């Protein structure tokens, strides 16, 4: 539906370099990258507020470079909400309809309807500056949706909300996308948001597209070490394939042998990605499981990370394991304790290193 074809764009000291993206109708498309990576500029280019220096932005196959933003039917919600401070909530939401020269009675109906749907009817006559962040957020969303856009662009919509409003809003977005089939493009630096919401993800680092894939793809099979670290994979090892049994490879990582599913010739240098929650910890007297990889080690450190506990184990290579608080207490996972670490070959994602070079 939206295609970025080799778009380059320089704005002052910042630049996007040869970005190609494909956003399909009905997607929840996530643009993920560190702060300051120019993710907002991508949204503004889709909305027509910037003109690419080269390359083209196609919407349904039509090159939009000469279509001004007011004719694109693409709504944009900024991180700062950008409500019009001199208008009431009603007038803010009605703005787009007025610009489209809707009859007054229809405007009143449509606006009241959407205010109701977003549970903000009681704010109808308030001015934005007197409202909380969560309330402003809802108004901004209502304002952008009342004009019935083809695409909704969201610029870090959750970063300024406190945790309570945050969770509520994620639920709203999910329902907007699932129940109403809206195409949404969402930019953020938060991998949590991407995991909770996205279908497809583009990872943008330093103005370059590093990976475009499904959310599972990006989070489980990062194309480079850089992406792996950014999406928060706890264990990333570099090693060399030393045996290839059809679709099962054996990788030597600093002398430790790890089995992974994959098919690369002997001698290939690969990055191995293993999520901390895919690794199991056992007492040294624990039972045998089907897991291919079994390492012995000693706990070096363990600490809470939100609802889970992260346990670092030295097995020759440093392995990080995520366990629930309950398991941590039951197994008494403290520093110095010897444990067995197990993970399946299918939990290890091997990506050849030379793909890194191809991307850069």
């Amino acid at each position, binding site marked *: 539906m939206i295609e970025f074809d080799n778009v380059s764009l320089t704005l002052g000291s910042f630049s996007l370099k040869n970005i190609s993206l494909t956003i399909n109708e009905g997607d929840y498309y996530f643009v993920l990258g560190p702060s300051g990576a120019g993710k907002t500029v991508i949204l503004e280019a889709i*909305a027509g507020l910037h003109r690419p220096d080269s390359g083209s932005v196609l919407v349904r196959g039509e090159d939009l470079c000469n279509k001004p*933003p007011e004719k694109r039917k693409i*709504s944009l919600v*900024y991180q700062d909400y950008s409500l*019009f*401070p*001199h208008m009431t909530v009603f007038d803010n939401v009605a703005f*787009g309809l007025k610009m489209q020269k809707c009859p007054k009675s229809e405007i009143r109906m449509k606006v009241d309807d959407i205010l109701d749907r977003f549970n903000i009817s009681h704010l109808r006559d308030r001015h934005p*500056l007197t409202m909380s962040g969560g309330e402003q957020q809802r108004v901004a969303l209502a304002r952008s949706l009342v004009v019935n856009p083809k695409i909704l662009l969201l610029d870090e919509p959750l970063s300024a909300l406190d945790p309570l409003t945050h969770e509520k809003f994620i639920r709203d977005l999910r329902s907007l996308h699932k129940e109403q089939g809206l195409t949404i493009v969402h930019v953020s630096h938060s991998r949590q948001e991407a995991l909770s919401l996205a279908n497809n993800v583009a990872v943008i680092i330093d103005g370059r597209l590093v990976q475009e894939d499904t959310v599972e793809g990006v989070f489980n099979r990062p194309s480079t070490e850089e992406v792996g670290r950014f999406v928060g994979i706890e264990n990333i090892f570099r090693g060399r394939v030393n045996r290839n049994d059809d679709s099962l490879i054996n990788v030597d990582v600093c002398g430790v042998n790890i089995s992974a599913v994959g098919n690369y010739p002997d001698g290939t240098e690969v990055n191995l990605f293993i999520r901390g929650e895919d690794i199991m910890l056992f007492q040294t007297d624990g039972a045998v499981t089907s897991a291919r990889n079994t390492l012995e080690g000693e706990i070096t450190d363990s600490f809470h990370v939100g609802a889970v506990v992260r346990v670092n184990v030295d097995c020759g290579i440093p392995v990080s394991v995520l366990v629930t608080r309950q398991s941590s207490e039951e197994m008494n996972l403290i520093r110095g304790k010897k444990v067995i670490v197990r993970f399946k070959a299918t939990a290890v994602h091997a990506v050849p290193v030379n793909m890194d070079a191809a991307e850069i």
Partner: protein
Amino acid sequence: MVKKAKKYIFPDRCLISFSLVGGLIIALTVLALMNMAVKELSDIPHILKVASDAKVIDSIVLTMGAGFNAILILLLIGTPLAYVLARTDFPGKGIVESLVDLPVMLPHTVAGILVYILFMSRGLLGAPLEEIGLSFEDAYPGIVVAMLFVSSPYYINSVRAGFEKVPLHLENVARTLGATRFQAFIRIVLPLSARHIFNGSILAWGRAIGEFAAVIMIAYYPMVISTLIYYRFTTGGIKESSTVAFVMIIACLGAFFVLRYVSRFLGRYDDRV
């Protein structure tokens, strides 16, 4: 949204000495005002006589009116220029900005000469305009054009600063919602910089009615208040002219007080960061 925090601070030694040194400038202004006020108020009948002098009243009305006229022209042609300067970058922008500022940096008599030789009866613009009945030398249009020239940078720079304070995001959102750039300008940018436009107008008006050098060169007559004060200073002496000056100060204070009061009701949303 973030209101600037008040900064009532317990004064330390540094702040106190800074206030004492810096206070010298304030003291100079206060002393100058008090000095004049004490002298003038000792002879109230004289003030009343001067204040009811038809020549003085006519001159004050002429000055304020011509200033108002210049501001009206600025509103129409200065506002679009301020918007273009606030929102776009183009090659040579620095030169345009320097040209906008030029009238501030030029000595007033130089500005006066520039305006005079352009608009005098034999001038490049003065001659053809005189043909169609608009004469500038020693005439009301000459006063307006001199005031316009010297006050334009004040208006344009204030309004530009106001436009720059309106977040670009608001305009962008308005456009994605279907507003053309002009509609976004009228409905978003203008209302949110109402106070800057008003205050810029006051500032430019103050500069316009205060101009002397540029005005006398093209129009010694009809006498604006500055010319009248200077005329009385050189002919009637200090007592005459200082009373006229005092009356003008009162009139200005009154006008500014009213205008500032009005501006409170304008652009409550300008404060948005």
